[in-house]
């Protein structure tokens, strides 16, 4: 029989994705025995994040302020709005340094069979955000999975009907890709999406 405090910690750690009882126990022992400082930092950071982080009023990404730094920046092109699924996708887009507009982070995707519908990805908020009168073009940067495509299609239809210009990220053979080594699905799509030069 373990002390209740230890049991509680192990149970609490199991909320993490992919963490079962064994990994949770391992993590708990590690934090308590090997790295009490780290454990304190973790507890503090978790608490701080929970009280100070919320969703940016404009882009829905995590932010400490009501409006995040990106949305508040004067150097951004406010006529472009890129729609991404997750904060990680936002980070990737930023890392390319090829896009200077603003964002909307869905925090998910339409996934009919998981019960993820328009409400779960805040489509009503996206629509009113895109119709602020300043946005001219919405760039659909959701994943190229069936769920991401369904999401892009749905948002595209809703916004086109409201008079906005809508574009979708192009896809195809990767930079530096040799046809011989590209997977056949990608190549087939590249043939379908070929463009006139």
């Amino acid at each position, binding site marked *: 029989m373990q002390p209740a405090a230890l049991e509680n910690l192990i149970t609490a750690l199991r909320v993490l*994705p992919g963490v079962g009882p064994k990994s949770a126990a391992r993590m708990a022992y590690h934090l308590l025995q090997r790295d009490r400082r780290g454990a304190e930092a973790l507890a503090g950071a978790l608490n701080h994040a929970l009280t100070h982080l919320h969703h940016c009023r404009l882009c829905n990404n995590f932010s400490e302020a009501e409006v995040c730094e990106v949305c508040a920046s004067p150097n951004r092109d406010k006529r472009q709005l890129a729609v991404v699924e997750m904060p990680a996708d936002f980070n990737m887009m930023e890392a390319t340094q090829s896009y200077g507009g603003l964002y909307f982070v869905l925090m998910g995707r339409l996934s*009919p*069979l998981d*019960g993820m519908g328009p409400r779960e990805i805040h489509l009503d908020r996206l629509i009113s955000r895109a119709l602020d009168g300043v946005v001219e073009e919405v760039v659909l940067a959701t994943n190229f999975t069936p769920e991401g495509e369904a999401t892009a299609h749905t948002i595209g239809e809703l916004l086109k009907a409201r008079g906005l210009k809508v574009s979708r990220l192009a896809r195809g053979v990767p930079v530096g890709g040799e046809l011989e080594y590209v997977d056949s699905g990608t190549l087939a799509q590249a043939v379908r999406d070929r463009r006139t030069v």
Partner: protein
Amino acid sequence: MSADARVNNEPGFVLHTYPFKETSVVAEVFTRDHGRVALIARGARRPTSTLRGLMQPFTPLLLSWFGKSELRTLHAAEWQGGLLAPQGRALMCGFYLNELLLRLLARGDAHETLYDRYVATLEQLAGEAGRSDYERATYLERILRRFEKNLLSEIGYGATFDVDADSGAPVQAQVRYVFQPERGALQASGQPGCPVSGQTLIDLATDRFERPATLVEAKALMRTLINHTLGAKPLYTRQLLRELTELTQ
């Protein structure tokens, strides 16, 4: 391991996946000779996994797995080629087909005919491009009604549409009927059931969906039959389409 526990290069499609442990997924697949099977794809969520892009719905695959338990282990998946994924509205229809198969097929029952029908239906869905909005809508509706009818009859809920369940006589085109899932077509005289015209019943029996009124009534009738078969839990894809329609207005 016995010989029948190992399956090689079986044609199949992923219907749906969900995360499993830290880096894996469980894929519910529909295969030609083994029906619906649940496969663990180990490591499929690792960034470098070749399975990552493959274990997606609407991708024709050759699947190899082993094991005998409820959850088999996938050991190879290969892109089979030849079929492009449906897009736009047709893609939504594809999710609907997948949800129907997930909800209505029991694991491990082979349905070769239905599988071939599913592949043909996906091909038709992918081939809807270049039509006008109205043409596309009715084209997609016809595809869905045919699939629903086939699915129901394949899993043993096939209905006889063109025979009057009371008299045993053929249904007459000009007469109004109500359709009861447990009994069939009855001449309408105030009893419960899905109201439907004789012409629609004849069209359903003969797989003809050209008449606009047939499409409308067939949709309601198929919905009644599918709901009857599914039980209480509603279909997610239907609910999603309803919510989207609300946003459009």
